[in-house]
């Protein structure tokens, strides 16, 4: 409902305030008489409050004549008649992910405005102080209003820029949720929002492979969530997870999305990442993790993302597919490997590969280095356990 208000008012703050006021007014009013259609009641109350606020603001600014009452469109009449809450979330996602908004504000703003997450919770997820997060969100909202960012889904000709920004934002938001989940149950709800949004996007834009790829990726990753921690709270790598805990419904949804994406014939990094997750999940049917195929997908992914994240993950897969020595060789070949010694995933990968190669001293050194880099509690437990088993 906030989304629908915001699109009509072209002002995120005003929409949130009007909705909050209407909700507050609903409590006493509904106690007296329960409305026939509570959602429609809320919509009308919020809309009226927003218009009042706009009028008051106009008077304060001593504007030339009052804004005329917006003409009633057929859309408004449909709203008044039956379904009071049109789904405006897609438009709002494009607004929040506009390239004119600072990249580091987009994910937080999207989760705040489209999913209604609190500033306090966002601050925690993005490891920021709450006032700083509030300031970032406020600045972004003000820019949207004052610079005239359009509340429209951009035309297809603008999608190369705009859709990519949306997908990148959701990917960042999900990465937060995924990491968060390893340490607290709080993150699961956060991930639920990204699950919903990526599904919505796939429903509304079903002809773009990367949109479907992202939705599949989030579903595959969420399918494994119940198996990611052992009873002691330690991280469990995918290849060792209890397949009985994986959520079959999400796996099926993800597989259907990825198939549909493949039919469109334009591959991209998110489809490849989803494919890698899918191969891990295929152990459910075959009993083995197809490491050689996973290496193949990482090779393809490196064409789109030739970065250290891809390189380190690929080296781990090579270690499983072709032996630890080969894995270590490809870890050394990661671009900029010399600068990665202060990067936790690199040290954790090195430790695992050295351990498998029988290089116990090197492995211990890498485990110590990884532990010194401040891993999350679940990963700390896992690393400590591996280190303990070495000696």
């Amino acid at each position, binding site marked *: 409902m906030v989304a629908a208000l915001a699109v009509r008012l072209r002002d995120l703050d005003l929409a949130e305030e009007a909705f909050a006021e209407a909700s507050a007014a609903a409590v006493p009013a509904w106690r007296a008489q329960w409305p026939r259609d509570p959602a429609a009641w809320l919509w009308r109350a919020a809309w009226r409050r927003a218009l009042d606020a706009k009028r008051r603001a106009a008077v304060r*600014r001593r504007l030339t004549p009052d804004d005329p009452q917006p003409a009633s469109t057929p859309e408004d009449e449909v709203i008044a008649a039956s379904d009071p809450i049109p789904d405006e979330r897609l438009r709002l996602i494009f607004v929040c992910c*506009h390239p*004119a908004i600072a990249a580091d504000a987009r994910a937080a703003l999207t989760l705040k405005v489209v999913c209604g997450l609190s500033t306090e919770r966002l601050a925690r997820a993005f490891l920021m102080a709450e006032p700083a997060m509030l300031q970032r969100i406020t600045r972004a909202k003000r820019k949207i209003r*004052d*610079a*005239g*960012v*359009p509340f*429209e889904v*951009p035309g297809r000709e*603008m999608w190369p820029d705009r859709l990519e920004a949306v997908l990148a934002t959701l990917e960042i938001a999900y990465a937060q949720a995924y990491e968060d989940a390893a340490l607290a149950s709080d993150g699961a709800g956060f991930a639920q929002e990204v699950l919903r949004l990526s599904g919505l996007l796939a429903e509304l834009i079903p002809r773009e492979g990367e949109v479907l790829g992202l939705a599949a990726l989030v579903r595959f990753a969420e399918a494994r969530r119940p198996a990611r921690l052992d009873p002691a709270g330690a991280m469990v790598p995918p290849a060792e997870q209890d397949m009985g805990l994986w959520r079959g419904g999400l796996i099926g949804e993800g597989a259907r999305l990825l198939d549909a994406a493949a039919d469109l014939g334009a591959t991209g990094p998110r489809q490849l990442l989803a494919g890698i997750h899918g191969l891990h999940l295929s152990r459910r049917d075959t009993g083995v993790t197809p490491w050689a195929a996973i290496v193949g997908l990482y090779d393809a992914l490196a064409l789109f993302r030739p970065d250290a994240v891809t390189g380190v993950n690929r080296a781990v897969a090579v270690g499983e597919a072709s032996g630890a020595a080969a894995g270590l060789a490809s870890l050394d070949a990661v671009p900029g490997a010399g600068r990665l010694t202060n990067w936790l995933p690199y040290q954790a990968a090195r430790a695992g590969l050295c351990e498998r190669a029988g290089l116990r001293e090197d492995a211990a050194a890498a485990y110590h280095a990884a532990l010194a880099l401040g891993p999350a509690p679940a990963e700390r437990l896992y690393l400590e356990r591996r280190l303990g088993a070495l000696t």
Partner: protein
Amino acid sequence: MQYMLLVYEPEDLDQGPEGQASLMDVAARHMALAKAMSEAGAMQAGAGLQPVATATTVRTSASGQTLHDGPFAETREHLGGFYLIEAPDLDAAIKWARQVPIRPGGSCEVRPVATY
């Protein structure tokens, strides 16, 4: 809404015979853009500015006003001209800004005009 498109370029681009030739080329493309803006009903105003060496700055401090030879800020990129346009929203304004002929090293800032 009204938007200012502020065109910044390093001035040394105009130096030498090659620079002069590229200046002539850019000027012709500015004329064409201004014509397109007028035809679309977007053009409100616009002008190119004389080189920054012609600038004089009036500075105001607590003790009064002083005159300075030169621009307000010593930067490599200088304000070289502007367009004032009418556009329905930021995307439409950015669409015009992308068509402003700017040589490598320059930029075009899009600023909404304040309304009171």
